[in-house]
């Protein structure tokens, strides 16, 4: 199969969908002439012109709100937030407006809109440029949340997301951008459905439910756990955080009896806690040991390499938690 980077996969999905549907347009800071700070929208202006790839001033509230307005009448705006941390700058438009619009209008309007951008730690961007926002988005009903971990999934999911008639947050991760993986042929209709998790590693001892860059960390952790301790983790890549595909997770837990949720947004009131709560609501009988979650420590993500490594809920912490759980 053709190989591609994560960035390239997203770029291809954008291009294909913009060709397919002229209602799709891009809007954000530096997305046009420069092609995006992380070069995700590179060369799209050349093909689609200034009207469909709109460079904005640094006015997140306005351009996010404008995307909502355009979506009300069937345009399909794709908003780039340069860092997903800037969600907070446009939070009113995102959570008080976009998320609620269909509901407040009693379904008279629907909002086919995508907010995308990169998030996450690992590159020493510090407190205001490293947050993971999936739990924040998931807390508010009305916006779907998608966070693929591989180029293949990224391309297939972004295409589905653009075609979805609801608002969707499409969360990339800065550590994934230059990772490579299989890519579907560029001209083939390749769609991955929203709301479908996928088992990315089979195993019998414990289920790790995770997504985005944490998936890669979990896969590494699982390899170590297998080699060093003979523990076989099954890893479910959620891919979509809202709506949650609990069915696939519970199927895995039925096999393993153990559930660990791993994510990079804050643990406190995070999606991991949500999964634990749902497990005890829906499938308490399947759990042979207490379900657990691992997320970002309750600190604002420091710049220093030594400190950032300490607080990120990555491989080491996954391994340590699995070992604890196996002892229970």
């Amino acid at each position, binding site marked *: 199969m053709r190989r591609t980077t994560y960035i390239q996969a997203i770029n291809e999905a954008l291009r294909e969908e913009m060709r397919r549907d002229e209602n799709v347009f891009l809007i954000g800071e530096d997305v046009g002439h420069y092609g995006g700070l992380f070069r995700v929208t590179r060369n799209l202006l050349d093909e689609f012109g200034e009207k469909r790839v709109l460079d904005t*001033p640094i006015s997140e509230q*306005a351009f996010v709100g404008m995307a909502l*307005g355009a979506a009300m009448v069937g345009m399909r705006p794709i908003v780039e937030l340069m860092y997903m941390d800037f969600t907070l700058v446009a939070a009113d438009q995102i959570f008080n407006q976009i998320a609620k619009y269909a509901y*407040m*209008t*009693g379904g008279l309007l629907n909002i086919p809109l995508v907010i995308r951008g990169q998030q996450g730690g690992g590159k020493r961007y510090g407190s205001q440029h490293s947050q993971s926002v999936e739990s924040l988005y998931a807390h508010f009903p009305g916006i779907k949340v998608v966070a693929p971990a591989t180029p293949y999934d990224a391309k297939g999911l972004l295409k589905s997301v653009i075609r979805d008639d609801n608002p969707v947050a499409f969360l990339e991760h800065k550590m994934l951008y230059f990772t490579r993986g299989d890519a579907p042929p560029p001209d083939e209709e390749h769609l991955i459905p929203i709301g479908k998790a996928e088992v990315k590693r089979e195993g019998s001892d414990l289920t790790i439910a995770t997504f985005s860059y944490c998936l890669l960390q979990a896969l590494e952790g699982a390899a170590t756990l297998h080699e060093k301790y003979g523990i076989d983790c099954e890893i479910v890549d959620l891919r979509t955080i809202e709506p949650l595909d609990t069915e696939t997770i519970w199927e895995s837990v039925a096999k393993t009896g153990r559930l660990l949720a791993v994510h990079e947004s804050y643990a406190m009131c995070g999606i991991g806690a949500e999964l634990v709560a749902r497990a005890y609501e829906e499938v308490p009988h399947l759990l042979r040991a207490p379900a657990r979650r691992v997320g970002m420590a309750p600190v604002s993500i420091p710049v220093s390499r030594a400190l950032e490594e300490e607080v990120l809920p990555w491989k080491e912490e996954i391994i340590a938690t699995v070992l604890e759980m196996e002892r229970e």
Partner: protein
Amino acid sequence: MTQRGETQSKAKSTDDSAAPGFSQPGANDVSGVQDDWVAQTLKTSPAISITTDILPSDSAMGIEAPPLPTEQLLEMYRGALTIRLMEESLLAAAEEGKIGGAMHTAIGHEANAIGAAFALRPGDYITCTYRGHHHGLAWGMDPGRAIAEVMGRADGFAKGKGGSMHFVSPEHGLMGANGIVGAQAPHAAGLALASWLRGEDRVAITFFGDGAFYQGVMHETFNIAAKWKLPLIFYCENNRYSEMTPIWRTSSIDDIYLFPRSYGMASMQIDGNDVEVVHAAVSQAAARARAGEGPTFIEGITYRLAGHMAGDLETYRPQAEIEMQKAYEPLTVLRQKLRARGVEETQIAAINEEVDESMDEAVAFAEGSPWPDPAEAYRDVYT
């Protein structure tokens, strides 16, 4: 309990005998007012403040407001009166505990909506604020369903989910009122963007208050709209209060309408209580927008005769200020215009009666509408 038709503005709306004469001399003399509230309130726009100063009100800055056909004025009167009576009905219903939440009426603001609605075309877009009942009706919403919505009934256009603060009717171009001050402005810019991207000649208009002017999102939207020359009209209904705070207390800007010129935007200050002036200004702005000349800013000077919201005790402004403003409120101005055109009192009275009756029917319809099915609560989160 207040009787129907007898709102906090005290004057029964289908009869203006209580209001001072239209251009009564000395009407803009505020010396009789006990404290300095009025004077300070008017300070915001000392040059051309309200109908008081710009009478005769058939012209505004840079605006030629040609007289509209009498037939149209009569329609406008009917529209404005419908709004007024609906608002009065709603206030009465609120006092009876039939309406919860925050309900903001547009009593005194009617001309801004009516003048604009008659100036725009089907297919144009509008967004507005929680104070949006007048826009809803002016753009053609059915009063019965509107009242049902405010009361949270199943026949409300949003099945009772949105209520007073979220009037919406895409079929009429009304894309949504908003509970967050300022939030609806970029939505209109986005609608204008859609029109521009599609090569359509639809125009978007967004209404907001004087208080909204100080929200950051307005500045952002002004800049982008001006830069991209979006077919957009910014319409500020300047009633000189932001909830209970007079605008001069928090604003460093003397003349709101001058401010948007910094963005290279056309802008004007007009009498927002005069439907003909509003109509002329919005027509001009729409023509500019359709010609690709970009957004226009309109500051409509107006006044809300009722409280900020139902239940407002209005301790923050003197009764004398309200009384003074009644001489220049939209219905009074409209009736004066009609009389000046030779319309018979009987014709006006006939409209009054018709509207009054149809409002009774609307209220009855709304009150007869069932509560939504509880299962409805879980629908419409996603399409």
